[in-house]
Every structure is written in C-alpha cells, then in structure tokens.
C-alpha cells in the first residue's frame, strides 16, 4: 500500500494503462509540456512522446470528435476537458454521437474512449470553473458516468474506464485532487463500473452520495456517532449505471434515506434515486425520502460568502440527517 492523493492516483492509472496498451493516447489542452493544469499528465510527454500525449487547440468539440473518430478506428483515447465547465461545446459529439455509435451502427462500431473532466466547486472557481455536469450525461443511454471520491476508487475506476469498450465520462472533483489522501494497493487492481461502495456502515439512516460530498458526509456521520446516531454512507462511485441494489438493500435495513449532492437538486441524480426508492422500497420507509443538494441558481458565485452559501457542507448535512432522524 502507498498513500496517494486523488490526482496522483489519476496520474498513476493513466501511466499504467499507457504502458500496458500502446493504443491508449491522451489529448487535451495544456497536457503536454505543462503536464495539465492540475498536473494529471505531469511528465507524460517526456515519457510517452508527443504523438501519444497531444496538446490540442482550445477547441473542445474537436477534442472529443477527434478522440471519437480515433476510438472508432481502434485506438483508446482519453480526452481531457481542462475544466468540466468547458464541456458544453462537446455535447453534440458526446450525447449526439459517442453515446449512439454502437446503437446507431447496430454494433458494427463502438467507441472505447474516456472523457475526463475535473468538476465541482469550493475552489473559488466562480461561474466557469466550478460546475457539476453529471446530470446530463447520467441521463444519456449509451454513456457510462463515473465520479470517484477517493484515490483508491479513482485509480481502480479510471483503469476500468480506459479498458471499457464504451464511452465513459469520468468526473473528478477538483477539490479532492490534493485534499484527499488514501491508501492505494501497489499491485494491479481495477474496480468495476456500476458498483457503489459502503463507505461507512450504519443502521439508523442511509446517506447516498458521491464525489467530494462523500467526505463531508463522513465528517457529519462521525460527529453524529457521538450522539448515538448510526449513519450508513453509500458512495455511488458510478452514476450510470447506478448501483440500485446496494441502495435498496441499505434502505430496507435503515428505513430512512437522505441523498446528498453538490449539483443542483431539480432533475438531478438524487431525483432518480428518490424515485427508485419510492417505487421499490416504499413499504420499508419510515420517513420521507430527502435530498440535500445545490441551490437553484445558474452557477456557483465567486465571492467567498456567496460560494459558501452555494456549497453543501458537513454542517448542512448534519442538520439534514438530524431532521430526518427525528421525523
């Protein structure tokens, strides 16, 4: 075991897959001699050459479109969008094209590609460097969507994403990059896409979350343990497919569920989980299905108190859990 940060785990996963498979290439903005704005590809161009580590023009639609064409021709491209906020010009190539390659060719072609994008706020990123973009991709059949929270999960899931034969949107929370450390095995491992993980076992209430919020939920649960409240935390890790079985098993045990995400609430990932629990575990509930999520403003403001107001944090989670526990 080695202690790594999330960004180190991401870097190790890509380096190992680049070494393992010559068809893996990375393309994106400033990923070459700069090593990426978050240094995810630090040293890669020296190690693997300019042909496999491609600095692109600042033109996101073609970053994904070119990666898609290369994927359909047998390569395994990783396309990096520098900040998830810049992903919107790629929507046609991702949602309109990559997601439909296999279906629209009746299985003749497929697109083994990964679209990596650092997302999320709490980093003074303002409107254009803080967004959470998962909902639109998680809504799209044909895509897989992953949002890891820990170095272990980031490495194991990114390796799976690179080896996957379908397009995977890989959303790393940029706040976790250097904030979150954790043990990562030294030997080879992967984590299957579509499987959630119980990050903390408990019996009184289920909290379903992903990304940075996993860590805030753990903080809140730790505080509540001293009050005798036992919180079970499910880290979804994958948002398409979602591990519905894991959620249902936990809710059937605890009878209460709170869904927490940083992305805004309406028509977000939490809405889908709430609907699932209502449909499949209604008779097990002894409280309303609750969501704690980002507010309905168009994007995250820049000024500290305003940003603070936007972000979900452990205090807000703690009071939501208390509210539901006492229902």
């Amino acid at each position: 075991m080695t202690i790594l940060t999330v960004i180190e785990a991401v870097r190790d996963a890509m380096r190992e897959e680049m070494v393992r498979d010559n068809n893996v290439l990375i393309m994106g903005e400033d990923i070459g001699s700069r090593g990426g704005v978050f240094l995810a590809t630090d040293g890669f161009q020296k190690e693997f050459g300019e042909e496999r580590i491609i600095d692109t023009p600042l033109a996101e639609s073609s970053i994904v479109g070119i990666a898609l064409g290369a994927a359909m021709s047998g390569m395994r491209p990783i396309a990096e969008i520098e900040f998830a906020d810049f992903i919107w010009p790629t929507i046609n190539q991702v949602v309109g094209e990559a997601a439909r390659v296999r279906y629209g060719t009746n299985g003749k072609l497929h697109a083994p590609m990964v679209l990596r994008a650092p997302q999320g706020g709490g980093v003074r990123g303002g409107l254009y460097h803080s967004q959470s973009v998962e909902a639109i991709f998680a809504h799209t059949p044909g895509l897989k969507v992953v949002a890891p929270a820990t170095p272990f999960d980031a490495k194991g899931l990114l390796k799976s994403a690179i080896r996957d034969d379908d397009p995977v949107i890989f959303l790393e929370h940029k706040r976790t990059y250097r904030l979150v450390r954790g043990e990562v095995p030294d030997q080879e491992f992967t984590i299957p896409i579509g499987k959630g993980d119980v990050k903390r076992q408990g019996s009184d209430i289920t909290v379903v979350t992903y990304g940075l919020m996993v860590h805030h939920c753990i903080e809140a649960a730790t505080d509540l343990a001293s009050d005798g409240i036992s919180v079970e935390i499910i880290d979804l890790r994958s948002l398409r497919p979602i591990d519905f079985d894991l959620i249902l098993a936990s809710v059937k045990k605890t009878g209460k569920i709170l869904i927490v995400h940083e992305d805004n609430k309406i028509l977000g990932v939490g809405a889908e989980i709430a609907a699932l629990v209502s449909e499949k575990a209604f008779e097990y509930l002894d409280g309303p299905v609750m969501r704690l999520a980002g507010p309905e403003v168009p994007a995250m403001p820049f000024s500290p108190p305003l940003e603070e107001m936007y972000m979900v944090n452990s205090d807000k989670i703690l009071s939501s859990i208390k509210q539901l526990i006492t229902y």
Partner: protein
Amino acid sequence: MARKSKPSNGLLTDADLKSMYEEMVLCRKLDERLWMLNRQGKAAIVASSQGHEAGQIGSVHALNKGYDTFYIYYRDLAVMLSLGMTPTEIIRGFLAKEGEPLSGARQFPTHGAYPEYNIVNLSNVVATHLPQAVGAALAAKMKGEQNVTIVYFGDGASSAGDCHEAMNFASIHQLPIIFFCENNNYAISVPMEKQMAIDSVSSRAEGYGIPGVEIDGCDIISVHRATFEAAQRARSGKGPSLIEARVERYLPHTSDDDDSLYRTEKELEKARERDPLKILRALLFSSGILDETVDGHIQRNAREAVDNATEIGEQASFPSSDTFYEHIYAN
C-alpha cells in the same frame, strides 16, 4: 475495419471509364426509384444524389476501395454503390427493412457503418463527422498505416465550427485526410451568397496552410485527378487537402422539401445542362468506348438490378422488435 490494399495507380483506362459510367447509370436509376418509392408512400425520406454522382464516383476511383476510409454524409449514394454496396442493401435501408447492413434499419437510410468498405455515416448533424474523420486519420498515422481518410460534406457544413476545428487540427498534425466538399450551392434552401462572404469554399484552405482546389465536380476526370493528387500527398506524409467539387442538386434537399419556394425552373434548367451523366456519356461515345448497343445493355442491366432490388426490398420483413435493446453497451 477492413484493410485490404489494392493501390490505384492514378491512371484511368477505357475499362475504368466504362465501369464508372456503369456505376453512374445504376446510381441514377436507383436514385430515381428511391424518389418514386417515397412518392408511393413506401420510403419515408430520401436525399437525392442526382447531380453529385461524378464527384462521388470519380473520387472513389482515385482511392483504394476496402482500404481507405470513407466518412460520408447523407447525399453520398454513389460513393456507397461505387465502393460495392448493392442496390438491394440500399433499398432495404430506404424501406427500413430487416437485413439493412449499416444500422439494422435503426437509422435514416444510408446511415450507420459498413466496416467491410470502411464506410462511416453516423450523423444527421452536418459537419459533426469532420472531426471524427480527422480522428480516423490520426489513428491511421499513429498505427503507421498508408490508409487515407476522405470526408465528404456539403457547402452548408463548411460554415460549421466543427469544420474549422477539424481542418485546423488535421493541418497541425499533417494527417492523411482529404476534405471533399460537394458544393451544390445550397444549404437546404439557403444559397451560397447567404452562407458565406467568399466565392469559393476552397479559398478557406489558405487559413489552415493546406492546398485547396476548386474543380468542376460534374467532370469525373477532373475529380479523379484532384482526388488522386490529394491522396498521394496524404500517403506521402504531406498532410491534408481541401477539394471543392462544384456539383448540381437536381432535386429538393430531401423528399420533404419544396425547392420551388427558393429555386426557379430556369436555374434548374441551366443546372441540367451540365448533368454529369450526360457529360460522361458524351465523352465515352466520342472516344469510342461506348455505342448505342453497349449503352442499351448497361441501361437494361441497371434497370433490372434496381427492379430486382425493389422486389426483394418490398418483400423483406421489418426488423424484429426483439432487436430493440441490442447493442447499447458491449455487455
């Protein structure tokens, strides 16, 4: 994708010209039949290639069938036939029948992929396929192949952002790709002067540092020569080229369009004067490659092939609904 090497030497023999003519006759007859099937209520949508055939067939013959990669768009029926697809396969698509090879009749006709011929035609969103074609060329270069990618698009697509991004990237990396613009002067209903403030799509090449040529797309020999030269450049590592083939569109944008709202009969009459089929026919007659007897034979064969395909297509079943959920993910 298939990778069978059968290099073209750039020369056109009498036999080549005759076979190009046969393909053009077949394409025209098939296209006319498709339009008829639409008017009979049997084919939901048709985008005609009539007037574009010389650009399509001439370019295919300058490349290596089954080896080079063809990213096409919805008006490229003659590319598909010239590469080896059969009228039966095409009609199955237009009637949305079982056994349609490109998409299992999930997509609009002519859309999907045919790996044996390296045909890709995914999207209805114009210009979306240009960056994808550049990706195919990037893959070929990285694998050290001699494969050339040709991407066909209309004058309308040339105004889209993806067109700019694709050409820029292809030029930076000197990728083996041919940008082949079939300029019929109309983006659906909008004439060229309202699409761009320049006289020629090919002049845009200068902005990317690549060669751009404007050619008569109704003259199959000019098309063949320009495409062969571009392919040679690509194969020798000299990067992309832009070819603007000036073609004509004899029918509305699609079977759902009414071009009388934006084109005059006089303009269409003038366009028909340079019908690529008539031009090639006249050339073959004047050079003694074709006479009335041989031409009659070619016409009859084409008609029979189209009749036969229509019969098979009409008798074929629709796809089973059991296939509905297939091929969403690998597993």
